[in-house]
């Protein structure tokens, strides 16, 4: 593709342009799932810098836990109680995993004004791990908690935690990595995907940033560790650990990691390994590129590499790989607010689904309590899967191809089938026809009059349309589009007829006919607006 825009040398300078609801909405869409008018207003009232700081602020630990939504779990644990502290149970593990996914999704839907859930998903994509392969929902819950707790913490510490994470020990065969018969799986992905990244192969087995020999050496460093089902933690077996010294290639400055013999020694080896990897500039650049592709755009040309990725990497190094400073640098930068990049990101399925629910204020069914509530969330999870983003089941350890597959990147999310399905989903939400999974009689509910009341003046058609457009789209619509929207709301009628009918409804909110009169029009308008191509972008 041709060069459509370049990043200038001042790209990382703090943004000094206009700060209002439009810019706040841009920040919100990129750092959360969808934008609500309430959140936008809150952020717009702050300065840009304060708004970013608010999003990056520490959040209290999550107090809720995934619940039993099915009839009962082992040990007499019934619906509405959590299963996370129960022993493994093969019969219930699938239900537990569904429960975990549903609960995770519910945290996205109910997110506070914080970047934490977006970052939690970022790490899930980065440290991609498939729940079915792990095979124990408790493990996946633990990993999910690790990602959320450390979402805004320290990248290097998180890599260490992930190295000992029981789910990852299983997923990438760390638990089978023993002295004398090393399993290279984790040692490879740690470098290729989680930290330094694979560069160009300059000669056989030499990937510029590391070599095949380094994979083998790292695997030997990592021997001896295994997951522990009893504690849902990890364990160390000294006789499985390779106690010899490990020689790394010139790509790592020919570093030698001294062998350790006991658990403390083996853990020290892991620390040495990570220090060696994190000392390389390529590591800071690699994670910076991933953050850039997550929050800004997938095209990284020379200008972006030099003027954006470089400063981000420098920030990481200068701050010992703390995440908050680098995010603050990026989200406060003039590049982040550059008009040419607003709306260049195709929404992920979860941005689309969760964002639609949040922005529109869709009420999910709850008639039968926990079972209906969880069915609703599971239904949304399944929709996400149909749209090619299955929470807890990224396609492989590389995460979703939208973040690495050259040259399509984000465009992979959309094809004729998934766009069709997305629009069907939005149509169903707006028409109150979205059925929760299995329980076919319970439907989500959207009151378009409540959504209209978020407008600064819903009695004025043009104001209403403009306010909705600002909420739903990253960029202004053109005059023809606005006219079409106006004709959709008010075909062939003067504005004052809308004002009259809307006022009439507000004065008689319990009159079903008066409400229906305006609801039908609003629903038609909203359906149409959600079908515009612009709604697929953020």
């Amino acid at each position: 593709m041709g060069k459509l825009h370049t990043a200038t040398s001042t790209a990382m300078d703090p943004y000094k342009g206009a700060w209002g609801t439009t810019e706040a909405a841009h920040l919100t869409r990129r750092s959360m799932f969808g934008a609500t008018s309430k959140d936008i207003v809150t952020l717009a009232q702050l300065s840009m810098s304060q708004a970013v700081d608010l999003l990056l602020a520490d959040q209290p630990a999550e107090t809720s836990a995934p619940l039993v939504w099915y009839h009962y779990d082992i040990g007499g644990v019934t619906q509405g109680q959590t299963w996370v502290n129960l022993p493994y149970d093969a019969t219930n593990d699938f239900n537990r995993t569904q429960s975990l996914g549903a609960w995770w999704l519910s945290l996205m839907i109910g997110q506070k004004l914080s970047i934490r859930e977006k970052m939690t998903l970022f790490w899930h994509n980065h440290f991609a791990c498939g729940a079915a392969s792990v095979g124990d929902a408790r493990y996946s819950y633990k990993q999910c908690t690790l990602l959320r707790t450390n979402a805004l913490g320290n990248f290097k510490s998180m890599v260490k935690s992930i190295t000992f994470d029981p789910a990852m020990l299983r997923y990438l065969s760390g638990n089978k990595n023993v002295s004398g018969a090393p399993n290279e799986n984790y040692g490879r992905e740690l470098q290729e995907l989680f930290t330094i990244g694979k560069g160009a192969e300059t000669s056989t087995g030499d990937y510029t940033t590391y070599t095949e020999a380094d994979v083998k050496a790292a695997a030997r460093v990592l021997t001896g560790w295994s997951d522990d089902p009893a504690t849902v933690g990890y364990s160390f077996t000294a006789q499985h650990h390779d106690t010899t010294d490990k020689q790394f290639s010139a790509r790592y400055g020919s570093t030698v990691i001294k062998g350790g013999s006991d658990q403390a020694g083996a853990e020290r080896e892991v620390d040495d390994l990570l220090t060696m990897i994190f000392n390389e500039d390529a590591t800071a650049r690699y994670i910076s590129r991933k953050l850039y592709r997550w929050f800004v755009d997938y095209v990284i040309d020379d200008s972006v590499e030099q003027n954006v990725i470089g400063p981000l990497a420098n920030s990481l190094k200068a701050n010992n790989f703390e995440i908050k400073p680098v995010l603050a640098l990026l989200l406060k930068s003039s590049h982040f607010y550059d008009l040419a990049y607003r709306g260049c990101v195709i929404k992920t399925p979860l941005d689309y689904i969760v964002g639609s629910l949040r922005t529109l204020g869709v009420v999910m069914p709850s008639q039968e309590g926990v079972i209906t509530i969880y069915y609703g969330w599971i239904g949304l999870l399944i929709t996400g899967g149909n749209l090619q983003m299955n929470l807890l089941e990224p396609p492989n350890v590389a995460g979703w191809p939208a973040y690495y597959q050259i040259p399509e990147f984000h465009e992979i999310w959309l094809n004729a089938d998934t766009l069709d399905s997305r629009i069907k989903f939005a149509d169903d939400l707006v028409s109150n026809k979205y059925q929760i999974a299995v329980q076919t009689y319970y439907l989500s509910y959207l009151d378009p009059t409540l959504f209209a009341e978020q407008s600064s003046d819903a009695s004025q058609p043009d104001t209403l349309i403009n306010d909705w457009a600002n909420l739903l789209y990253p960029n202004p619509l053109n005059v023809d589009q606005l006219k079409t929207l106006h004709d959709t709301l008010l075909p062939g009628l003067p504005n004052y007829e809308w004002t009259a009918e809307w006022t009439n409804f507000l004065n008689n909110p319990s009159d079903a006919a008066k409400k229906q009169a305006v609801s039908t029009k609003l629903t038609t308008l909203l359906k149409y607006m959600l079908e515009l191509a612009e709604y697929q972008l953020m």
Partner: protein
Amino acid sequence: MKRRDFLKAAAPATVLPFLVGGYSIKAFANNPLLHSLIASSIPADRVLVLIQLIGGNDGLNTVIPLDRYSEIMAARSNIAIAESAVLKLTSTIALNPVLSGIAGLYGEGKIAIVQNVGYPTPNFSHFRSTDIWLTGSDYNQVLETGWIGRYLDQEYPGYPTGYPNAQMPDPVGVQIGSAVSLGFEGPTANMGMAFSNPSSFYDIINDTKTQTANTRAGHELGYVRTIGDQLQKFAVPVKDAATKGVTKSQLWPTANANTLADQLRIVAQLIAGGLKTKLYVVNLGGFDSHTNQRKGQDPLLAKVSEGITAFQDELRLNALEDRVIGMTFSEFGRRIKSNDSGGTDHGAASAMFVFGKNVVAGIHGSNPVLPANATVDDNINMEFDFRQVYASVLKEWFGASDTERMNTLLKDFPTIDIIQSAGVTQAPPLPSIELSQNYPNPVSISAGNRTTQIGFKTNGGFARLRLYDAKGSLVQTLIDNTVPAGARSVSLDATGHASGNYFYTLEAGGARSTKTMVILR
């Protein structure tokens, strides 16, 4: 397949919107009527065109009851049409003079006027009353499906699974103008394809796309739109039909001069091109005549007349008249008494036009009863429920069974004989007058034709032959006296007239006949 089965199956979208130039286009799949029509004696290729007059059309200034003139003048002298100016259809019924084209079609036996159509307990909200008309509900009933949608859902219960297919490759319903009508909403899916406006239709046909900005954001917007275009399951048949269907009538106004005519022209083009779509919805807004009604409603009615006349002419030229009928409707009529702003406020019953070669031409129903001194609260009483008109079309035009009609309209409404059908009704005997096409036509002054000959035949007595321009303004009176019975001819000198479309109307013995001519300078 039941609704829940469909949803479990996670089938592709039932509504198939796609995006053209940034506007979405909805495809309402399939042909709902094929099944039942195969089994019936009614041809399967019948088409219904619904013309929605948005805003509430004032019936009293559309179809004028001549026997109520004193009441009219008492109630609305500031907007009433002078009795001398009206187009008389019968001794007691006349049309607004801008409806000359409709008057002409009436003379040809192609117009049925249904008087005083409404519903009990009228609602004066535009939106609510529109919903009532589109959903076919009672005044106090809220339905979320449309009458058309409910009918189609019975005909094709499996919809949308399996459509389009070889038997029905085309959209079942096409709407031109804004978003898809509530009328098309079925229990499980909406059943139509909407072109947001005539130009978006041509965007599709011509594959033109709105340019996007040369930025990263513009690039991705272009990508989404490209994918959106791939969703156009019905784009190919619609494009094919639009390509094959060539409009031939000289009566179409220039583009953008009459939005209703522009929409009807597309409909004619698609029908002529072989599209199997059964239902078309077009609309014209602006009928909400609270102020200066004559300046608002008259030009709009002229557009209606011009559009329908050209449409009917197009059908005739393409030999499609047997297959197509149309009807106008509006959410309500207006008050009998005008207001002080030269307008009328939201009212109740009003007249509908049903048009086509196969309608039972004439007047259905009686002239509205008007109080001698109407107050602001007086409304025209309903004579026919609008669902009687729907029931009649379903039964006599589409051959719907009694059960289907019940399931569609939710009650048993008596039909009105507005559609010609074997053994049921015949059109009232047409008057024995004949009006021939003028010769030469067009009259090309630059080509040396200064005059053109108009032939006609009457039973003798008083006759009037007048020439109107396309807007319905009287241009010239050719005959206005008694003539002998039999065939005669009159010469029209065109030298003083501007280029354009004209109508000429013969009135004799209580009958009227209108034809069109084109004058070129």
